[in-house]
């Protein structure tokens, strides 16, 4: 096995890059911890739900842009993945409306 494996040169570690990865990890952990804290200290309601959704979107942004590296990809790729998500927004509006309509029909 060893004989057929070519000798490869390992590039040195860039501490700046590693630091950045752990910084993003720290941000994700802190946001999750705050979410967890708010679930117990804050009364449920529209405001708390809005805060939760906002924090979720921040976490999603960090995962997609840094961990999945999309922020550093070509613009055309970013747009061709981002634009189709408009359909998701449409489905949220349509189905939540539908749910409320059924609710008022039964109550």
């Amino acid at each position, binding site marked *: *096995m060893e004989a*057929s*494996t*070519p000798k*490869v*040169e*390992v*590039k*040195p*570690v860039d501490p700046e*890059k*590693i630091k950045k*990865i*752990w910084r993003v*990890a720290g941000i*994700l*952990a802190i946001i*999750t911890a705050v*979410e*967890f804290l708010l*679930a*117990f200290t804050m009364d*449920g309601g529209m405001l708390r*739900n809005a805060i*939760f*959704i906002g*924090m*979720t979107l921040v*976490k*999603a942004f960090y*995962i*997609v842009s840094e*961990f*999945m590296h999309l922020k550093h*990809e*070509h613009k*055309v*790729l970013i747009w*061709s*993945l981002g634009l*189709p*998500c408009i*359909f*998701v927004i449409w*489905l*949220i509006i349509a*189905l*939540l409306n*539908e*749910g*409320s309509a*059924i*609710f008022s029909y*039964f*109550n």
Partner: protein
Amino acid sequence: MSQTSTLIPGATGVWGGGKEPMKASYGKLMMWFFLLSDTFSFSGLLIAYGMLRFRYPAYPHNPTEAFLPSVDYWPIPELVFDAVPFLHGVHLPLVFVGIMTFILILSSVTMVLAVEAGHRMDREGVQKWMLWTIVGGVTFLGCQAWEWSHFIHGTDIGMTVERLVDGEWIKSIVTGANLAENQYGPQAFADLFFFITGFHGTHVLSGVILNFIIFYNVVVGTYDKRGHYEMVEKVGLYWHFVDLVWVFVFTFFYLI
């Protein structure tokens, strides 16, 4: 339409062929577009949850008091998911699912570190971090198995339901949940729990299998021979997506 496509000799535009207009390899692009289609699948499931939740009245009792389940209103998750292994009967809302979230985020971080080591052609680094990622994934799956088992077997008290059997109302106690019965609230709540966390769990399972295959290839030196570690990047994209979906499931199924 006599001619649907014309090849212009000597075309030099970005989209004229022979170039990478998105500056990414074929495999990576296909992984991205697969993940986009998977986004729609998970959106469909989570939005269906939202719709059914809007269809039922909200939980009418005080959330800090004992849980009173009923098929007439939607339960609140912090009263349903309050159990932790080895702590039977202790009310610890969302603690276990919080631990699961941290495990999955951590395994995502180790995956980024594996991809970073791959960029530097550091085989030992990739091995180490991919192994940690697999450990994280397996731990998460174990936690989810426990969570499912607890949800299926139910609490000590259960819920009293009235059913119309042969023209008579008969009272019975339902404990636990499956696709036909549910002690926690409307049937749709249990069905969505199984479908959403089950679909996500299937993704975690296939992610662990893919990670293991790539880990094996790393160990036997496939990517050193190939000259790059792009396969690690591709399974990395998939693994981060699994983490991303969990972030949304955590918020919309457990927190809100």
